[in-house]
């Protein structure tokens, strides 16, 4: 009886260990296959030709994705410029000014809205934002502006939610101390609370960035499909993500491998962002 019990517990522990290791296995497999398909082209055509190449015509051995890299960064930056301050303002209001009931109602609502699929955002972007831009500002409507706006709206819940959590975790004593010294509420927020929550807020920005740069479906619908580096806010563009999604279904041979190479570049960018977020934030928190 004794023996059997100990063995059963050992087996269970082993099974659970295998389950836990499965995450590592999946991660490894994903990287392995993406790299196996995507790296060879870097050797054959050269890293420079791909990463810095200006021409994308994969059926004719032109694999340049530089315009797409630039486009990806531009719309991400645009999304942050528009979305981050707005989201931070929203989070600050929720955390510092809103009553308990408002908080209780709005926070879950925000998280609910974060669950709206990206294709819906893209669709509404095409139907409403693109025509408005086309009519009032010119251009095709499919532009950096439209993409940035749509992405900004998409990352609002993410940034708001995490910044809110950060702000809420600043100890009340900080605020009380500042107010006791005669500061107004806004002075307190600006000089005490926001700096205290700085690392969490920055982390939320980086996470928002990660979400924006990895977004595919919404971008496809509002970015247009231009293969050149956009020179104005109203120019259409193609990002790394839309590059992959638009052509994967019918690509073969080198063309397909070029799409995987695009994936490799995207993966590198996003993983770097995540690492920066993790280490930077951790370093600040440790201080």
């Amino acid at each position: 009886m004794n023996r059997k019990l100990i063995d059963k517990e050992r087996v269970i522990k082993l099974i659970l260990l295998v389950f836990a290791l499965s995450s590592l296995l999946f991660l490894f497999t994903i990287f392995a296959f993406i790299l196996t398909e995507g790296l060879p082209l870097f050797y054959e055509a050269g890293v420079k030709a791909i990463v810095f190449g200006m021409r994308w015509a994969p059926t004719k051995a032109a694999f340049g994705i530089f315009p797409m890299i630039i486009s990806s960064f531009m719309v991400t930056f645009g999304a942050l410029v528009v979305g981050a301050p707005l989201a931070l303002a929203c989070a600050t209001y929720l955390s510092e000014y809103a009553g308990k009931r408002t908080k209780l109602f709005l926070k879950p609502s925000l998280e609910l809205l974060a669950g709206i699929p990206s294709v819906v955002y893209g669709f509404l972007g095409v139907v409403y934002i693109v025509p408005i831009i086309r009519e009032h500002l010119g251009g095709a409507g499919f532009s950096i502006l439209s993409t940035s706006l749509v992405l900004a709206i998409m990352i609002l819940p993410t940034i708001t939610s995490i910044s809110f959590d950060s702000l809420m975790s600043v100890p009340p004593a900080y605020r009380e101390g500042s107010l006791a010294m005669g500061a107004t509420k806004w002075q307190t927020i600006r000089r005490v609370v926001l700096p205290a929550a700085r690392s969490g807020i920055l982390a939320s920005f980086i996470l928002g960035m990660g979400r924006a740069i990895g977004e595919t479906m919404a971008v496809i619908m509002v970015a247009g499909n231009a293969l050149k580096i956009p020179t104005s806010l109203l120019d259409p563009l193609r990002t790394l993500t839309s590059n992959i999604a638009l052509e994967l279904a019918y690509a073969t041979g080198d063309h397909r491998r070029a799409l995987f190479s695009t994936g490799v570049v995207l993966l590198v960018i996003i993983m770097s962002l995540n690492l920066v977020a993790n280490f930077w934030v951790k370093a600040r928190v440790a201080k």
Partner: protein
Amino acid sequence: MAGTKIRVRDLLVSYGAKEALSGIDLDIYENHVVGLMGPSASGKSSFISVINGMINFEDGARVRGKIRIDGFGELSGRHDHVALRKKVGTVFALPIPLPRSIYENVVFGAKLKGVPRSELNELTEVCLKKACLWDEVKNRLSESALKLSGGQQQRLCLARTLALRPEIILLDEPCSGLDPISTAKIEEALSELKRDHTIILVSNNTKQIARASDFVAFFYMGRLIEFGPTERVFTNPEDKMTDDYIRGKFG
């Protein structure tokens, strides 16, 4: 003289560099209540943890010495923990009911042990009676145990332990924070229970030890200062420290 249920020789317990118990030689007699008294941090709870094997869950805890339990064998660290705890039941200082009904709480351990369903109802009644709780809850066994008062919850914990029919029952300051009536009920239960069980009662309250135990062991700073029949120790202590403690001069 009754047989020895637990024989402890040269027990040493340390947490890292700190010694909690050293050089303990003690015989716990069957079917008696042995009280452990002494100020806090004198090692009483560590002693309990050794007997019920829960000390193995503490990181960095080291146990040396010989502990022999009649009917089980030696506690060696590699013994069968689950089997040990079927023989040694514990009631902790704070009542910790499981977030379930009163009935479910009582039968939890029994079910795991394999007691057939048909016997569970009777077992529940018997155990709750022995814990002096039956009358108060007999009509609401399916209610959540969390609705009971502190004293009732503690008696429930006792009943729950009894359901496993342990040969030894350890109570680690079971009445701390309880009202006098609940305390009295628990002491009343113990005086009945000792007929079928061997009981170790840890308490900071010397009066409770005097009331409820047959033998008493006085612990101080990890050492066993004195051990003997309760009446003798309280009226005629051998060691001056024991005398001081009983008189309330410290602790």
